[in-house]
């Protein structure tokens, strides 16, 4: 898994490539924590090139969501293929994450003051 973080206009966009699994989800967790600790409150995860996400990946996103909720920030997800979307659906997480089809839609929907 590779993560590229692009900061622009007070938003961090995570471009993730590969599989998010038990072995590398701690890396995603660390990147999310560092970003939130820097004071960035708006995070978009682009799933265009994510092939697979397991429960540890989902749990990492939930932890990020909890942290951002505390500081009135937002986490959004976009560009998932059907398999990834199914994982969110089966785990009943579709309603707690804002999921968008395109990066533009997601970026335009952050409720910044």
């Amino acid at each position, binding site marked *: 898994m590779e993560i590229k973080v692009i900061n622009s206009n007070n938003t961090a966009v995570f471009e993730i490539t590969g599989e998010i699994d*038990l*072995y590398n989800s701690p890396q995603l967790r660390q990147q999310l924590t560092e970003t939130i600790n820097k004071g960035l409150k708006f995070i978009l995860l682009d799933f265009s090139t994510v092939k697979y996400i397991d429960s540890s990946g989902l*749990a990492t996103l939930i*932890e990020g969501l909890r942290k951002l909720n505390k500081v009135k920030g937002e986490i959004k997800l976009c560009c998932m293929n059907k398999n990834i979307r199914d994982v969110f659906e*089966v785990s009943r997480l579709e309603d707690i994450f804002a999921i968008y089809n395109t990066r533009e839609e997601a970026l335009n929907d952050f409720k910044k003051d």
Partner: protein
Amino acid sequence: MIRIENLIKNFGTRRILDSVTLEVKKGETMVIMGGSGCGKSTLLRHMIGLIRPDSGHIYIKDKDITGMSEHDLNEVRKSYGMLFQNGALLNSLTVGQNVALPLKEHTKLGSEIINIIVKMKLELVGLTGFENLLPSEISGGMKKRVGLARAIAMDPEMVFYDEPGAGLDPITAASIDQLIMDLSNKLGITSIVVTHEMKSAFRIADRMAVLYNGKVVAVGTPDEIRESDHPYVSQFINGLTDGPVPLRRSKDEYLKSLTSGD
């Protein structure tokens, strides 16, 4: 996903598995059926690497596990979960701690992440909010569901089930069957289920294998098994006393066994 080739196992002079050959395809639910002592649990124990065969091979994801070192076998074991007959929970640990156990043992995930995964798995088996109870405080069916949550904690590709409905009332057994089907349909998990319960077997199976005297005597879809003309298969699925399996041994055989000291 799993390929078993000519598996032979003897316990003493008794042949328990006799040239068993069977294939389990990715994503399917394969039910292994047969009467008590037919070798089905022994076959399951071979598949999870608890017993080594006398000869033959078992390939899991194209790797032969029959000659594997314990270290390599432990790596393969991470790709599957196992639901034991009684749930096999540790009584001194809470429900949540039981589900967390494989994640703590085999991963470097932080405790907050593990706690979230535990909640997700308990939700999948319909036990949200039960994480702080002890096994002694929940019913037998709930214990099975906790065992299942633990079996899928690591997101395995395969789950082995040993008599999942044993000791449960029909409604609870049906709910366990539904969970097995949900995991298979929704998560694409390959399921291998050992059972002698007909209703359950026909409800959940994509394909079934019938074992008799250590041999696979029939493999097929539930419809194909129903229509099988093999005398034992017919006797077994219809629960008949008359057939290849005699209710009692013959009088001569009985008297001989008493007098010969065997």
